[in-house]
C-alpha cells in the first residue's frame, strides 16, 4: 500500500506540461488503436463483400439466363427473386451491374427483354429514386443506370441535369441524352450554359460512336454558338462524321478572334481535305500565330495539289526552324517537284538549308 501511495505522490509531482503531453500521447495511442481496428474491420468487410458479390453475381446470372432463354419462365419466380434476393441495396447493386454488363453487349430484342426484366424487378424505380438524391454521384449513377437500360420515359428528368454545377454529373446527363434521345441526340447543345470540357467532349464523342446514331444532326448549326468549347466540339464531330457541307462555315470561322479556335478550324479543314480553303489559307498566313502557321503548312499539301512552291520557298527563308521544317515537309507532300527542289538543297552541302532538307527528306523521322 505504501508503494502505491508513493507512486501516487510521484505522479502528483509531475509538472503540468508533462502531464498534458502524456495525456495527448495517450490520446494518439487510442486513435492509433482505433485506426488499427478500422483497418482490420474494413479488410474483413471487403472480404465479406467480395464473397457476397460473387454469390449474388452467380444468382443474378442464373436468373437472367433463365429469364432470357426459358420461354415458359413464370413471372412469379421473378417476383419471388425480387422479394427474396433484391431486398437490400448491396444485392440490388450487384444484380444491376450484372444486368448492365450483359445489356452493353446485346442489341435488339434481347436488350429489350433485359429492360423489361429491369422494370419487372422494380429496379427502374430504384434508379429513378437516385435522381432525387442530394449527392451528385448518386444522381449520376442513377442516370447511368437509366441510360444503360434504355429508359426513355425519364428523358425530361435527365435533361434537368445537363447544366448542373458538377461537371461529371452534367457529362453523364449529356451522355444519357445521346443514348436515349434517338430523334435529336444532340439537341441539348442548344440549352447548354456551361462549357464542354475536353474530357466531356471525349465522353460525348464516344457515346455517339457507340450509340450508332441514325439521326446525326448537322453540327454546323452550332458553329456560331457563343460558347467556344461547343464550337470546338462540333468542329471535331464534323470531322468525325465527315460533314463536308460545313466547309463554307469553317471558312468563315478562320476570321474568329480566338487563335485556338482557328487552329481547330485548320485541323478540321485538313482532315476534311477541304480544297476550297486554299486561297483563304494563303491569305491569312502572314497574320497568323506561329502555331497556326504550322497548321496552315500542314494543311495546304493535304487539301490541294496546286502549285504552292513559291509560297513554301518563301517560308523556307523565314528564321523559325519549325516553320522551315513544316514548309519543307509540305513541299515533299506536294509531289515530285517539291522533292526534287529539296533533294537539290540536300545535295548542296554549302546550302544554309541543307540540314533542313535532309531532315525533311528522311522518311524515318
Amino acid at each position: 500500500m505504501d508503494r502505491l501511495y508513493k507512486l501516487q505522490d510521484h505522479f502528483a509531482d509531475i509538472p503540468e506540461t508533462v502531464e498534458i503531453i502524456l495525456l495527448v500521447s495517450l490520446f494518439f495511442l487510442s486513435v492509433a488503436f482505433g485506426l488499427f481496428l478500422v483497418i482490420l474491420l474494413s479488410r474483413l468487410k471487403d472480404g465479406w463483400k467480395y464473397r457476397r458479390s460473387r454469390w449474388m453475381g452467380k444468382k443474378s446470372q442464373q436468373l437472367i439466363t433463365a429469364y432470357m432463354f426459358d420461354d415458359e419462365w413464370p413471372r412469379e419466380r421473378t417476383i419471388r427473386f425480387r422479394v427474396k434476393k433484391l431486398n437490400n441495396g448491396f444485392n440490388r447493386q450487384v444484380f444491376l451491374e450484372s444486368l448492365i454488363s450483359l445489356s452493353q453487349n446485346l442489341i435488339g430484342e434481347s436488350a429489350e427483354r433485359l429492360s423489361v426484366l429491369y422494370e419487372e424487378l422494380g429496379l427502374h424505380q430504384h434508379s429513378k429514386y437516385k435522381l432525387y438524391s442530394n449527392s451528385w454521384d448518386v444522381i449520376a449513377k442513377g442516370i447511368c443506370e437509366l441510360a444503360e437500360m434504355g429508359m426513355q420515359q425519364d428523358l425530361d428528368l435527365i435533361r434537368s441535369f445537363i447544366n448542373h454545377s458538377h461537371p461529371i454529373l452534367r457529362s453523364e446527363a449529356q451522355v444519357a441524352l445521346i443514348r436515349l434521345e434517338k430523334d435529336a441526340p444532340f439537341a441539348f447543345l442548344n440549352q447548354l450554359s456551361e462549357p464542354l470540357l475536353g474530357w466531356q467532349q471525349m465522353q460525348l464523342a464516344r457515346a455517339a460512336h457507340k450509340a450508332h446514331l441514325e439521326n446525326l444532326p448537322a453540327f454546323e448549326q452550332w458553329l456560331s454558338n457563343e460558347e467556344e468549347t461547343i464550337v470546338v466540339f462540333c468542329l471535331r464531330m464534323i470531322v468525325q462524321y465527315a460533314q463536308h457541307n460545313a466547309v463554307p462555315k469553317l471558312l468563315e470561322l478562320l476570321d474568329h478572334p480566338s487563335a485556338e479556335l482557328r487552329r481547330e478550324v485548320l485541323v478540321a479543314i485538313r482532315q476534311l481535305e477541304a480544297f476550297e480553303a486554299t486561297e483563304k489559307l494563303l491569305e491569312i498566313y502572314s497574320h497568323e500565330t506561329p502555331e497556326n502557321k504550322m497548321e496552315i503548312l500542314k494543311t495546304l499539301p493535304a487539301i490541294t495539289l496546286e502549285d504552292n512552291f513559291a509560297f513554301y520557298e518563301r517560308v523556307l527563308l523565314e528564321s523559325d526552324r519549325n516553320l522551315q521544317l513544316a514548309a519543307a515537309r509540305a513541299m515533299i507532300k506536294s509531289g515530285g517537284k517539291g522533292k526534287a527542289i529539296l533533294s537539290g538543297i540536300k545535295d548542296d552541302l554549302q546550302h544554309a538549308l541543307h540540314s533542313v532538307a535532309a531532315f525533311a527528306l528522311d522518311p524515318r523521322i
Partner: protein
Amino acid sequence: MSELIRSYIGETATFFNYLVLYYAIGICASYVILALISAFAMANYKKRNSFVDYRSILSSKFAPSVSLIAPAYNESMTIVDNVRSLLTLHYNNCEVIIVNDGSKDNTMQLLIEAYELEKVDYVLNEQVATKPVRGIYKAKNPAHHKLVVVDKENGGKADALNVGINVSVNKLIACIDVDCVLEPDSLLKLVKPFKEEERKVIATGGVIRIANSCEVEDGRLIRVHVPDKFIARVQVLEYFRAFLMGRMAWAHLDGLLLISGAFGMFDKETVIRAGGYNHNTVGEDMELLVRMRRLMYEEKMPCKVAFIPDPLCWTEAPQTWDILKRQRNRWTRGTAETLMLHRKMILNKRYGILGLVSLPLWVLFEWLAPLIEFFGMIFFVLSAILGFANWPFFFSFLALIYSFAIMNSLFAILSFSKSILTNSTSDLNTC
C-alpha cells in the same frame, strides 16, 4: 559552478525544451490537417473516378499526344527491357525518347542492336540550351517507329531531360526515370487532368510505389511483395505518408511544390517558357515545378498542378544505409537549393497559397527539421552530461512523438487501403 550560472543554464534548457515542444506540436498539427484534407480529397477522387472509363482516352481521336522522355546513364543492365516496357504502354499517340547521357558503359550499343537503330539527320530546334548532341537515332523496324534515341555528351539528368524536350514534338511531355516500371495505364491517368480542368493544367503527378522484392517480367510488374530488407520496408510506409497524405492534400489546396522526378507529366509550352530543367541544382524536379508555378503567378495566369492518388510508377528504393544516406543528402540539398533560389516567393502574397502557406511550411518543417533534430540531440546529450536534463519531459516528449508517428503511419495505411479503387462490386477482389 556558481548558482547563477546553473540557474541561467537551467532556464535556457527549459526555454529550448519548450521551443522544441512547440515546434513538434506545429509539425504534428500540420500532419493532422494534411491527413484530414487528403482523406477528403481521396474520397472526392474516388467518387469522381468511379465514372471514368480510361478506354475513352485510348480510343479517342481527341486525346492529346504525349512525348515520354527517359534519360539513361550507365543503364546497360536493364535498358533493353525498360525501353520495351515503355513501348508497350497503353497509349496511342505517344513517342518514346530515350536520352543516353554520355553513358560510359555499352547502353547506347545495346539500344542500337536491340532496336536496330540508325542515325538520322535530325534538325534540333534548341528551345532550351543543352550540352552537344552526338546523334539522334531511329529504328529501322517500323514496329518501333515510336522510339527516338538521342546520344549526347554527359551533362546530368536535367540536361538530358532538356535535350528530350528539344527533340519532342508533342504538347505534353512525361519525364521518367528509365529504371522505373510504369503501370500500363499510367499515361492515360496522367493525361486526364489536362482534359478535364477549366484552369490550365501545367503538371500532373501520381503515386510512386516501391518495387523492391516485387516480381517484374519484361519490364512489367507481375506481383507485389513487401520488401525483404528493413530499410526498404520502412520506405514503403514513408512513401504512403508522403504521397497519399502529403501530396494529395497539397494538390487539393493548390499548394503542391513537387512532382516526383521518377514520373510526371508537364505542359511543354510552360516548361519551355520557364526555361526547362535547371542544371545547377540536384533537386531539378522540385525546382522546375516551383519555377513553372512562379511564372504562372507572375503572368497572372490561373493554373493547376494535379495529383493522382493511384500507383502509377514503381521504383527501387535504397536497400543499404549508405545509398539511403546519399539519396537523402541529395533530396535535402535539392530542397534547400530550391528554397534559396525562390526565397523571394516565401511569405509573399503575390504567390498565393504557395507563397503564404506551402513554401513557409517547407522551410519550417522540411528544410529546418533535420537541423533542429540534430541540434536537439546535441543539446540533449550536453544537458544529460551536465545534469540539466529534464528526464520526465524527455520521456513524455518521446512518448508523444512516438505515439503520433504510430497514429500517422496507421492513417497512411488506412489511406492506402481506401485508395484502391472499387468502381463496382465486381472490383472488390482487387483490394
